[in-house]
C-alpha cells in the first residue's frame, strides 16, 4: 500500500511537470509530428491485421453458435457489430497498444534516463518531463481514437468476410449491422479510448522516466509499464462502462 501511494505521489508530481506550456512551440510541433508517427502511424498495420482477423473469427463463431433456424441470420452482423464497437476495438486494441506503444515509450525514456540524456536536457534548462512526455500524451490522445475507428471499420469488413465463409448472406449481414444501431456506441468507444490513450502514454512514460540502473532496469521498467497500463485499462474499462452505459 505504501509503495502504491509512493508511486501515485511520484506520478502526480511528474504529471504536474508534464502538463505545462511548451518552451518553444516550433520544437513542440516537430516533436508532436514525430510522436504521431511513432505512437500512431506505426501501429496502423498491426491494428488492421488484428481487427480483420478478429472480426472474421467473431462472425464465424457467432454463426456457429446460432445454428438454430429460429434465430435470424442477421444476428451475426448485429453481434459482430456490437462486439467490435463496444469492446474489441476500444479495449482489446488498447491492451495491444499498451504492449506495443507502452513498452516502446517506457524503454525509450528509460534508456535516455540511464544514459544521462534526460540529465543533459535538465542541465540545458529544459523541463525534460514536459519536453519528452507531453507530445507523446497529446499524440496518443488524438491519434488512438482514429486507430480505434479504423479498427471498427476493418473489423466489420473482416466479420463480413467471415460471415460469407459461414454462409451468411451479405444482405442479412448488412441488415444486422443496421439493426437498431445506436450511434452513441461509437461515442462511448471513443471516450474510453481517450482515457486508455492517456493511461498508456502517461503510465509508460512514468516508469521510463523513473528508471534507475542500467539495461536490466530499462527492461524491467518496460515490463512494469505494460503490466500496470493493462491493469489500469481493465479497471477503467469497468468503471467507464458502468458510468457511461448505466
Amino acid at each position, binding site marked *: 500500500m505504501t509503495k502504491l501511494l509512493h508511486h501515485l505521489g511520484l506520478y502526480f508530481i511528474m504529471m504536474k511537470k508534464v502538463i505545462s506550456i511548451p*518552451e*518553444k512551440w*516550433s520544437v513542440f510541433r516537430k516533436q508532436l509530428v514525430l510522436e504521431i508517427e511513432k505512437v500512431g502511424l506505426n501501429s496502423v498495420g498491426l491494428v488492421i491485421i488484428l481487427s480483420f482477423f478478429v472480426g472474421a473469427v467473431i462472425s464465424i463463431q457467432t454463426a456457429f453458435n446460432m445454428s438454430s433456424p429460429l434465430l435470424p441470420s442477421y444476428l451475426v452482423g448485429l453481434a459482430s457489430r456490437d462486439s467490435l464497437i463496444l469492446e474489441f476495438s476500444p479495449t482489446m486494441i488498447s491492451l495491444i497498444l499498451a504492449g506495443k506503444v507502452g513498452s516502446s515509450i517506457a524503454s525509450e525514456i528509460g534508456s535516455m534516463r540511464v*544514459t544521462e540524456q534526460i*540529465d543533459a536536457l535538465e*542541465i*540545458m*534548462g529544459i523541463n525534460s518531463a514536459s519536453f519528452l512526455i507531453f507530445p507523446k500524451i497529446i499524440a496518443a490522445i488524438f491519434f488512438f481514437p482514429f486507430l480505434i475507428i479504423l479498427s471498427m471499420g476493418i473489423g466489420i469488413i473482416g466479420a463480413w468476410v467471415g460471415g460469407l465463409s459461414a454462409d451468411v448472406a451479405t444482405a442479412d449481414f448488412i441488415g444486422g449491422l443496421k439493426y437498431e444501431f445506436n450511434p452513441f456506441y461509437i461515442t462511448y468507444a471513443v471516450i474510453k479510448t481517450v482515457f486508455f490513450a492517456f493511461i498508456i502514454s502517461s503510465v509508460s512514460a512514468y516508469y521510463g522516466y523513473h528508471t534507475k540502473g542500467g539495461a536490466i532496469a530499462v527492461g524491467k521498467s518496460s515490463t512494469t509499464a505494460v503490466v500496470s497500463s493493462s491493469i489500469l485499462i481493465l479497471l477503467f474499462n469497468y468503471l467507464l462502462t458502468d458510468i457511461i452505459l448505466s
Partner: protein
Amino acid sequence: MIEVRNIEKHFGNNYVLKNVSFIFEKGKTNLIIGESGSGKTTLIKILIGLHKIDSGAVLFDGINFNAIKTKEQRILRQEIGMLFQAGALYDSMTVEENIMFPLSMFTDKTEEEKLNRVNFCLKRVNLEGKNNLLPAELSGGMTKRVAIARAIVMQPKYLLCDEPNSGLDPKTAIIIDNLIQEITKEYNITTIVNTHDMNSVMEIGENIAFINHGEIWWSGNKDELLNSENTELNNFVFASKLFKRLKQEDEKC
C-alpha cells in the same frame, strides 16, 4: 567563478559531502580529484542542480543557485555547458541536430545562423563535415568532442566535465584535455573537470581540489601537488609505479 560554501550532503545515513568549501576560478581549468566513491561526482551533480544540498550554498558569480526560483535556475542553467562521462548525446539525432538543439530551444536564430554556429563549433573540435553522422557511428573520442561542441554552442560561462577521459586511449585523452583547456582560455570561462586520471591532472591542473571521504583534504595547482606532504594525496596521486618514479626523480633533482 563558482563558489561552494559549507556544502553538506548525505544519502540516508551515509554522509557523502561534509562541510565542503572551495572556489572554482574563472579562466582556469579547475579539477576535482579523488578516489571512486570519494564524493566528487556528487559534488559536480550538486553544482548542476541534479542533487539538492542538505545545507550550504552554491554561488555562480555571486548568485546562490539554491535560493533562486526554479524558472531562474533554468535560465542560469542555460549558461552552463556540461560534458557527461558517456557524452549523453541524443541517440535519435545526428551530430548536427545534437549541437543545434540548444540553439533551437533557446534562440531565435535563423536556420542559416544556427548551421553556421554548428559548423564553427564542429571546426573548433576538429570534426568538420561530420554533421550527418549518428551518435552510434562515432568513436569514443569523437563522441566526447561532439559533446564538447554541444556544451559550447551556447557560449556558456561555465563548463562542467564529468570524467571526460574515461574510456579513452591516452593519446585521445590528451587531445580532449588540451581542447578543454584551450576552450577555457579562449572564452575565459570557469571550467570544472571531475577526474581521477593523473595524466589530466599533470596536463591541465591549474586549480585542484582533492576530495577524500567527502571532505576537501588538499587544494593547489599541479606544481604544488608534486611537492605536497599530504600523505592521503600522495597515496592517491602516486599510486602507480610510473608516477612514484617521477616523484623520486623530481626529488633527486
